[in-house]
């Protein structure tokens, strides 16, 4: 992507404990393919905000690839709202700096991760935290325009950058050395 630096010295936050409900299952699941956590979209399995957070917390930051979105406090559990009965998920994220040019890519990586992992019944809205970005409206609009998202996913250069960010997503909050990767 771009060589421009948006935030050279980001604040790094400690990892929180893995979501309690998932934590117990995690060991059993490590050997399985991460993308098949949920079966077909027709089967009703309740999902909560902690599970959604687990899915996205370990996505790598596009600018600081050794750090996760959780470590940079870009995503957090309280910023996720799941209305399970209405099949709706709202994910809010906080760019590290208000002029962050990577915000669209971060949002796109969250969307793609959830698209690949969640049952099809969920409609997902993604937005930056109100007041956290100079182009808030523009970023939000683009991230929620499914045609723009679909076109982006047919752009090989963009998909390559996305896959780098998503490669670490399956750690689900585990530090690198603790995981099998």
């Amino acid at each position, binding site marked *: 992507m771009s060589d421009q630096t948006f935030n050279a010295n980001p604040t790094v936050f400690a990892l929180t404990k893995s979501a309690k409900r998932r934590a117990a299952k995690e060991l059993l699941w490590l050997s399985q393919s991460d993308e098949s956590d949920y079966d077909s*979209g027709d089967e009703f399995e309740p999902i909560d905000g902690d599970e959604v957070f687990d899915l996205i917390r370990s996505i790598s930051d596009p600018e600081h690839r050794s750090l996760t979105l959780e470590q940079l406090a870009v995503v957090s559990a309280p910023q996720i709202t799941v209305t399970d009965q209405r099949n709706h998920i709202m994910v809010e994220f906080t760019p590290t700096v208000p002029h962050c040019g990577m915000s669209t890519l971060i949002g796109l990586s969250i969307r793609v991760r959830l698209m690949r992992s969640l049952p099809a019944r969920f409609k997902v809205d993604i937005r930056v935290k109100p007041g956290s970005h100079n182009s808030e409206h523009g970023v939000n609009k683009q991230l*929620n325009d499914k045609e723009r998202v679909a076109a982006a996913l*047919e752009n090989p250069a963009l998909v390559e950058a996305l896959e780098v960010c998503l490669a670490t997503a399956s750690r689900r909050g585990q530090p690198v050395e603790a995981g099998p990767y």
Partner: protein
Amino acid sequence: MKEDLPCTLVPVASLSGHEDRAWGVAWNPVKSLLSTCSADKTIRIYTYTSTPSPSFTLLASVPTGHTKTVRGIAWSPSGTSLASASFDSNIGVFQREVDEDEGNVGAGEWECVSMLEGHETECKSVAWSAEGNLLASCSRDKTVWVWEALPDGDFECMGVLMEHTQDVKCVAWHPTEEILASGSYDDTIKLYLDDPSEDWFCFQTLTGHTSTVWSIAWSPCGRYLASASDDRTIRIWKRVEEHKWACVHVLDGAHERTIYAVSWGPKPDNAGARTLGWLASAGGDGRINVWELEIEEDAEENSPPRHRLLARLEGAHSVSDVNGIVWCPREGYRSLLASVGDDGEARIWRISPSG
């Protein structure tokens, strides 16, 4: 949620086969053909038997040659050409290889007769003028192109309209006059005319929607325009002067997510004299709505048409978004509605009195 509505959408057919999201659907205006397009880069063409319960058979799966999603398709008024708009930034025109005679449905391959290059980024929509001599296309490059169809199958660009400030999502021609409408990510609708001594120009910008305009549909009579938006409303615009349209009504609360498609069907078979046809809408909430629109008696200039919700269907494509919806324009088939969704399916519905 059981509602007491006068009509019901009865399933007629469910057509699967696309390997990815289905984006568009179009009925051939003269022949028994229905086509769909998809992110899988193909166009599927079905033939169907006569009403009341038509059955659909796949006639061809056209590879198209597009290297990315086929986003939109449109049949020419004569029914001989099918145009496609693709994310690969090209517009395709397809025709059947040999002249078929009706009934001999197996004959002739569908081949690409023209690939129109010019747009810089993803094409989103394509539309033929009422006479079939003009083709309009639009793209994320913010432009609308008007092409003239020449007799030898060639196309010449007549104008590049750079009026929108963002992604252009849809184009639609007036049903009888050479007036073009486009809807955009910039939340506006632009109306264009051809100046005989100059170029195509925008004569009005319709503002009011508060987010992306995804779809526009002219009423068959040409006096009204319906627009569907990400703001979850449908606006009805009325011709108040020869070259002036005004918003006369906002259909609010009918959808809970983005409205991706709106279709204004021709006067239904056996309809009353005052009817303006049926309006169907569909969107990200998976819902299909159908309204009946009528001219109000002793109507004032700016009064909206009388509207009544006829039918509502939830989960038309199960949990999937509905991306396209269109009424069959052919006489005798006007109670048929086709929809396409993120599930890759095309579904055919018949609107019938409830109970």
